[in-house]
């Protein structure tokens, strides 16, 4: 197994490789190694947009070797929340890193002028990106494809104008359709004048026991394709949840004023599949093909002249830029997703920022003077498009504030009770009940994917659970996902990677772990992350919960503040008072 960390210092223009066997032995890879490297690289109180703040990319022992282990984790200090930044992306990045021979990459410093990094096996070059600074994320990919080698086995990750402008929730586009979306990695790239990173490699991985390897590979592969554990992702995709959650009253609508959307059917996964889906793609090494691509065809003249844009969609962008903004047409949602893709904005944060602004304008906290006459109103796709562009251009104080996230804007203009963030991160699209709220609040990166509180809510609807049972489920998921995210697997495939299958697949690459080892690792990873969070000022006992969560009926009925408070009390107690 490779055990190398590639260090790149943009200030000095240098790079070198260190063998870090012990680091990988103790922390596996992926997020385990990521958090430890962050602790090494990022002293307390570092400005996340300063040269002293690192970018860490890491993969794990299964990436490229077993099916559906397709993710790379980015670890950094978030310019949005000021604490732990962690984001996962698929595409071809983990495979490219594997074959380039680097299980982790640490990027330090700040380039003197716009630059991009080119990694080709052991060769690392920092190249001038002045001529592509300011170019949208998609076109940047097109240009670099022509310039760099490694066709068919490389990964190109890049920022758009939002990252360059340091919008606090700018993302990094990975291989056109995937993203390090959340928590502002794009702004960290921008602050380092780092436009892109291209990775490719030609290494070959030898496994210790080929027969065993094939046996485990085949078993995992068959589970992924022949059973129904991943069926949902294979067919309609994650957007199948639009209709489900709408029906359950769990689909956040118009900034959580409602939890069901009368026009929901028009933006359902079924509707997208019927009207716009034209292609499905896979991350390298995954047979499922969950990446759904829609063709958005618009006429630009009356003479049958069309422009066609290819836009990837999923549940989350349809929630954030669709129901959450009252956009009731699939075309409108695709238009807004496409704008975010080009600018390089995180779709979830962008949607929640706009929904807050729409309500704030409606309620008179801001006026058309602040919006510079851009009409922010539900379903106003044209206005929203202009507003997104303004967030990046920051032509006035208001748009500059929007670029710093909902918390920042609401502290300045009011409306905190409906500024929909948890832990400073704009929330995802599940108003399913108390576990979703608690899960995102306590989660290490304040994501619904930290511990899937929404799934706990859904379980609790079927079979009632008390506060303690829900908290126990959240803690269990917190820890087990720390292991899975160290491998680094796709969370859609968590059904494939049972504890037994994880142990077997690790064994096949020569890493011997017991159930207890893994459980201990999951807990240790969680604790290290919380250490970093607390060091940077996160205080769970004082975390803000927007009142709106308690005012709008959820899939589990009206959520009582007492339930959430009780769950948080129990959680803190079980976690040793963190």
């Amino acid at each position, binding site marked *: 197994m490779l055990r190398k960390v590639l260090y790149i210092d943009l200030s000095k223009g240098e790079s070198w490789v260190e063998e870090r066997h012990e680091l990988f032995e103790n922390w596996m890879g992926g997020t385990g190694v990521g958090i430890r490297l962050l602790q090494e690289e990022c002293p307390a109180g570092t400005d996340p947009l300063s040269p002293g703040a690192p970018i860490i990319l890491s993969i794990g022992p299964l990436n*490229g070797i077993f099916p559906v282990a397709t993710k790379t984790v980015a670890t950094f200090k978030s310019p949005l929340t000021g604490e732990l930044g962690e984001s996962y992306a698929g595409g071809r990045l983990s495979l490219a890193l594997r074959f380039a021979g680097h299980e982790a990459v640490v990027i330090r410093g700040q380039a003197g002028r716009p630059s991009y990094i080119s990694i080709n096996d052991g060769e690392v070059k920092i190249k001038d990106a002045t001529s592509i600074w300011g170019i949208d994320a998609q076109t940047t990919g097109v240009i670099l*494809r022509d310039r760099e080698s490694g066709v068919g086995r490389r990964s190109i990750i890049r920022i758009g104008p939002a990252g360059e402008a340091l919008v606090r929730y700018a993302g990094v586009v990975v291989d*056109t359709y995937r993203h390090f979306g959340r928590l502002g990695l794009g702004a960290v790239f921008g602050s380092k004048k780092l436009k892109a990173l291209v990775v490719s490699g030609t290494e070959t991985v*030898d*496994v210790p026991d080929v027969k065993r*390897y094939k046996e485990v*590979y085949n078993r995992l592969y068959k589970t992924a394709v022949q059973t129904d554990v991943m069926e949902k992702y294979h067919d309609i995709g994650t957007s199948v949840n639009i209709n489900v959650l709408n029906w359950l009253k769990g689909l956040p609508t118009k900034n959580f004023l409602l939890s069901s959307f009368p026009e929901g059917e028009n933006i359902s996964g079924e509707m997208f599949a019927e009207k716009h889906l034209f292609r499905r*793609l896979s991350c390298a090494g995954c047979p499922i*093909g969950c990446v759904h691509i829609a063709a958005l065809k618009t006429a630009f003249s009356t003479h049958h002249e069309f422009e066609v844009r290819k836009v990837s969609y999923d549940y989350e962008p349809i929630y954030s830029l669709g129901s959450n903004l009252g956009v009731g047409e699939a075309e409108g949602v695709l238009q807004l997703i496409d704008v975010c893709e080009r600018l390089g904005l995180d779709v979830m944060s962008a949607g929640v920022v706009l929904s807050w602004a729409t309500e704030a304008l409606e309620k008179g906290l801001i006026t058309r003077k602040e919006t510079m006459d851009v009409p922010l109103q539900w379903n106003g796709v044209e206005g929203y498009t202009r507003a997104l562009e303004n967030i990046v251009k920051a032509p006035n104080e208001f748009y500059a504030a929007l670029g710093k996230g909902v918390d920042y804007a609401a502290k300045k203009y009011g409306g905190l009770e409906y500024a929909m963030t948890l832990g400073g991160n704009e929330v995802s699209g599940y108003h399913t009940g108390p576990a979703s709220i608690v899960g995102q609040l306590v989660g290490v990166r304040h994501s619904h994917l930290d511990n899937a509180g929404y799934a706990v809510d859904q379980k609790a609807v079927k079979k009632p659970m008390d506060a303690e049972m829900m908290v126990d489920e959240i803690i269990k998921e917190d820890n087990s996902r720390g292991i899975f995210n160290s491998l680094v697997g796709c969370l859609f495939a968590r059904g494939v990677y049972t504890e037994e299958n994880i142990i077997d697949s690790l064994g096949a690459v020569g890493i011997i772990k017991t159930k207890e080892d893994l459980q201990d690792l999951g807990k240790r990873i969680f604790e290290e992350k919380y250490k970093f969070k607390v060091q940077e000022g996160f205080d769970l006992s004082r975390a803000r919960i927007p009142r709106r969560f308690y005012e709008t009926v959820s899939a589990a009925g009206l959520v009582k503040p007492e339930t959430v408070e009780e769950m948080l009390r129990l959680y803190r107690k079980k976690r040793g008072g963190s």
Partner: protein
Amino acid sequence: MPEIQAAIRAAEETKKAEASPVLKPAAKDAAAPIKSKKRRRLKVAHPERCIGCLGCMFACSRTRTGTVSLQNSAIKIQTQGGIEGDFRVVVCRGCEDPPCARACPTGALEKRPDGRVVFHKDICTGCGSCEKACLVGAITLGKEKKPVKCIHCGACVEFCPHGVLKLEEIPASGG
């Protein structure tokens, strides 16, 4: 499944032939059991159904070489304009009159009477003539400067989730 097993058996046979230093290929030929007058050939049945998972490439290198590698794969999934563009599935066409074997100056690529082309690694000089001769780009030099060649075993077919690939039976051609 039995089809695949048979194909893999045939492939192993080919592999054996490739592994052993063959000094008298003609004698080997006479000994080679040709049970039917048919051979198996890989075919790209539905290239437009490819989702770019690269499962076939991994299956190829895993089955043939026991490694995890894209370089060791004889089948190639190429992108044109990144993942936004269409995938190109490159496989050996199992030509009746294989230009790769014709171009080989040392006889390392040898056409058998049944139409299969076998590779004798030991007498290959790594000149790259085979690579130049194949317009499709199905035969390429790997890391050791030796051609990575499809043996039509069908391992990739089994790991294509979308039925892009097919293993077909064709009449064995005359030597």
